[in-house]
């Protein structure tokens, strides 16, 4: 109380003005920080939206390319002759050889009723989830098999008097994640979980640190923007919820440090 009286009127006026200036500065600083964060968030949302559209487009193009490769394979006379022979060893050998031509990571051949004729999958999962074989011809689905995510395509094998179906799986691998990451300017992580599981497993990822990948085990809604520490992220569902072939999604992650670097660069 004595110190305040010793200041006198001038001193008190200066102290009040300094306090006011400090308060105003703090408020301005806080408002600027809020604006900065909101702007950062809105830019991240925009970039993730572009990344999402780009990811879907890349996957569509990849599907078209793989279907085109498969259609060449199933029209090969040698392959159709091998299928028509119904000889198990010939079928298995031709399936292995011709699926490599299309760059498939696994292939399954069934007759038109869905009975298994040959498979390059291990016998334990050769029967596979029934949904794998029930897909419409030409339709794309995704499956989580033996710790790996696959894009699964089905194409009819048709010739004069021959009716069968070829189901081919193309791994959702590092090269695909890298292409998505490079074009979208985000990190890309493919996650999957088996039917009935609650937490996800990371199938493949670009340069995201392991401790951040652990956080990705928890599910989140499609399109959700999350301020998960160092990253803004968005999940793009590739399978229907509760799919018999497992849930697979791709998470696009935008580093906040990289996002803020734009401000420092200005």
């Amino acid at each position: 109380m004595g110190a305040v009286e010793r200041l006198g009127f001038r001193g008190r006026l200066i102290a009040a003005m300094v306090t006011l200036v400090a308060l105003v500065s703090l408020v301005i600083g806080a408002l600027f920080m809020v604006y900065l964060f909101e702007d950062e968030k809105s830019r991240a949302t925009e970039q993730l939206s572009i990344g999402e559209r780009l990811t879907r487009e890349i996957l569509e193009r990849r599907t078209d390319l793989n279907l085109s490769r498969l259609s060449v394979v199933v029209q090969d006379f040698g392959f159709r002759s091998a299928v028509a022979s119904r000889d198990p060893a010939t079928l298995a050998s031709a399936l292995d050889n011709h699926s490599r031509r299309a760059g498939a990571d696994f292939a399954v051949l069934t007759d038109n009723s869905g009975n298994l004729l040959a498979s390059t999958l291990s016998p334990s999962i050769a029967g596979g989830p029934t949904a794998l074989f029930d897909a419409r011809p030409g339709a794309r689905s995704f499956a989580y098999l033996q710790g790996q995510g696959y894009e699964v395509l089905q194409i009819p094998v048709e010739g004069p008097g021959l009716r069968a179906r070829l189901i081919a799986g193309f791994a959702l691998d590092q090269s695909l994640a890298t292409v998505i990451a490079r074009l979208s300017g985000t990190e890309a992580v493919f996650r999957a979980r088996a039917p009935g599981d609650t937490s996800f497993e990371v199938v493949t990822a670009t340069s995201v640190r392991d401790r951040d990948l652990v956080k990705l085990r928890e599910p989140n809604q499609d399109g959700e923007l999350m301020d998960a520490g160092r990253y803004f992220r968005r999940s793009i569902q590739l399978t229907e919820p509760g799919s018999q072939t497992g849930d697979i999604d791709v998470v696009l992650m935008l580093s906040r440090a990289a996002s803020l670097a734009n401000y420092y660069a200005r």
Partner: protein
Amino acid sequence: MKRRFLVVVPVLCWALPMYAPALTLTVTDQATGAPVAEAVVALDRVDPVTPVTAEIYQQDRAFHPKVLILPLGSEVEFPNRDNTQHHVYSFSPAKTFNIELYAGRPERPVRFDQPGIVELGCNIHDHMQAFILVTQTNAIGQSGPDGRVELPVDTATNAGAPIRLRVWHPRLPDNTQPVSRQVNATGTVAIDLQPEPEQETSMDLLQQRFQEL
């Protein structure tokens, strides 16, 4: 003479249905109800049949005829009347064969000794397609433009009993085998068909025109 005439006429009248084409059916499209032409309808029975020798030739990069009904054990020649070679083959379980690229007439005909549908193709012309129906019955026919087909069958013997039929058309969803149907003495047979394939595009017609020039 007059008495003999009176006896003969009733006997003839009784006997006629046994040999006349007594079963008249109309084949229709299940979806639209429209009559279906070129459907093959056969009685589901086994008759003694006499093999024949027939011909499916290739001209203008197409098989002629596109559908051939054959008695079991028949042989078919595949003469090539085009200026390009053809590779005629089939993977059908009823007859798997392969005549590699050839011009003119193949060395020997192909014998069809199992009943069933044999689909033909050409390995270097994917659009070429034809069917051979190898049958074991004499009661078989193909529907006309109005969808009507007549089968030489005795309806008097099993009057009232349902008649089991086998019906086939190139546009069946699974055209590798006929579908089964049951009818009474007359009636309509409805089958599920896939839509007509698209007609030739204007570009194809233009290409055809250039070829003709």
